[in-house]
């Protein structure tokens, strides 16, 4: 237990998950570094998003999930989050009928939220505090989604495809925000954009068919064109 706390902030062991009876994650096991960015990679449909959702308890799952040495796999989603897990879902899922400020207020768990960090990272959001989130651009909505996770002091962040569908300029803004966030909290990042992964990730875990097929240095994986092509289908 002590080793686990010092070596890994998030440990997943024998994780299985299903959606409407269909298995989407099969016997996935990995450990996540307590610092920096760990990238969870794989081709489309291999179960990356489902793995994050299973860790969060958002879909039916079995297996062990440990956060800083504490088992959380039998806990409901809100308790897992209260233990210090920030979650940025795929497709942002901002509350369109709430203002930017209301989206942030809703996410605040602590009496002293990190509003200053949000102001530094996303000054545009502060200017648009009273605007309905549904009227924001995709990039701005992604900022709201990230800000909701960063407004609290978390032990770990799970971030699902934050650059999906964004313009290249916005992609870099999001990547820089994540880089800054990763200085204070470890990030498990699902990302298709390998340029962003190269920029941010220290470690990479690759899923295939719902299983882990690579668990090691992100630099080594992405530096090996043949391996990258074999595992991810792109170079």
């Amino acid at each position: 237990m002590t080793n686990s706390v010092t070596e890994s902030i998030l440990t997943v062991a024998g994780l299985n998950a299903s959606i409407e009876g269909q298995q989407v994650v099969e016997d996935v096991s990995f450990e996540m570094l307590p610092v920096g960015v760990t990238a969870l990679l794989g081709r489309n449909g291999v179960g990356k998003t489902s793995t994050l959702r299973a860790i969060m308890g958002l879909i039916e799952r079995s297996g062990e999930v440990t956060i800083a040495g504490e088992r959380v796999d039998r806990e409901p989603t809100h308790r897992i989050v209260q233990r210090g897990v920030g979650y940025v879902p795929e497709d942002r899922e901002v509350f369109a009928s709430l203002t930017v400020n209301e989206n942030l207020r809703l996410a605040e768990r602590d009496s002293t939220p990190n509003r200053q960090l949000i102001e530094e990272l996303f000054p545009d959001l502060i200017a648009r505090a009273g605007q309905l989130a549904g009227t924001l651009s995709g990039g701005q909505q992604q900022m709201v989604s990230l800000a909701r996770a960063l407004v609290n002091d978390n032990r770990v962040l799970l971030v699902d495809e934050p650059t999906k569908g964004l313009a290249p300029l916005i992609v870099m803004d999001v990547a820089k925000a994540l880089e800054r966030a990763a200085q204070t909290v470890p990030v498990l990042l699902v990302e298709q954009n390998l340029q962003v992964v190269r920029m941010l990730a220290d470690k990479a875990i690759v899923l295939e068919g719902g299983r882990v097929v690579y668990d090691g240095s992100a630099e080594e994986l992405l530096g090996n064109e043949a391996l990258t092509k074999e595992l991810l289908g792109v170079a």
Partner: protein
Amino acid sequence: MSTIILLLITGLGLGALYFLVASGLSLIYGLMGVLNFAHGSFLTLGAFAGWELSRRMGGESWGTLIASMLLGMVVGAAVAAATEFLLIRRLYNRHIEQVLVTVGLALATVALFEGIWGTDPIYVTAPPWLSQTTEILGARVPNDRFLMIGAAVLVLLGIVAFLRYTRFGLIIRAGVENRSMVTALGIDVRKAFTVVFAIGGAAAGLGGVLASHYFGYVSPQLGGSLLIFAFIVTVIGGLGSLAGAAIASVVVAILQQFANYFWGGTGDLMVVLLLAVVLLVRPTGILGKKA
């Protein structure tokens, strides 16, 4: 002209009753996806609680009327919260079981009320002003309609203020849009479920007391008869939309009044036809959102 005025204000009064029932139904469905067929029982119990208080305190004073309205709200809220906590909470996302349980509860409670208070209507007493009329543009409008309208407006404003200015309200608004994401922000959305049931039950309980004055009696079937129209109002307004429920309540009740007067008592038929038209033209209702 005086007939039009009378039908309009009477329609607004009836619409106020529909809104008091439909507001809770709409919020409960919007947040939890639960079609609560037991909602009429909260109304009936509120009405009986108000009547019991009224007959003990003497029903002709305003103090008694206000106390009975408050008691109706408290009883409605308590029973609704208990229903959510004891029965519905175990059945989220199990829609068939929800329907079976809430329909069963509705039938069982009507039988229980009949066992306690009998099957005959019990006539209520009220402050004399309520049984008098006020002349507006030549129409002699029963005063109790003003009470209904005033109460519904206060409830609407109260719910809107609660949703807009409290944290629970924020959670409920977000939960209506995306419940799982609220949970993923570390919020125990089940507490909001109980609060929404309590709010809906309070509005229904108040509606029960007011309905007993609108119709002049309380009976075990009071809630069931209003519930049918409240469901229609909820669907026409758009499931989950409080503003939609308010608009649809007024439209349905006024249509009903006019059709009953001008087209030979066809009010109920016209309401059902309106429901069919809305479902064909705009299946999500007036202000409902697409799934």
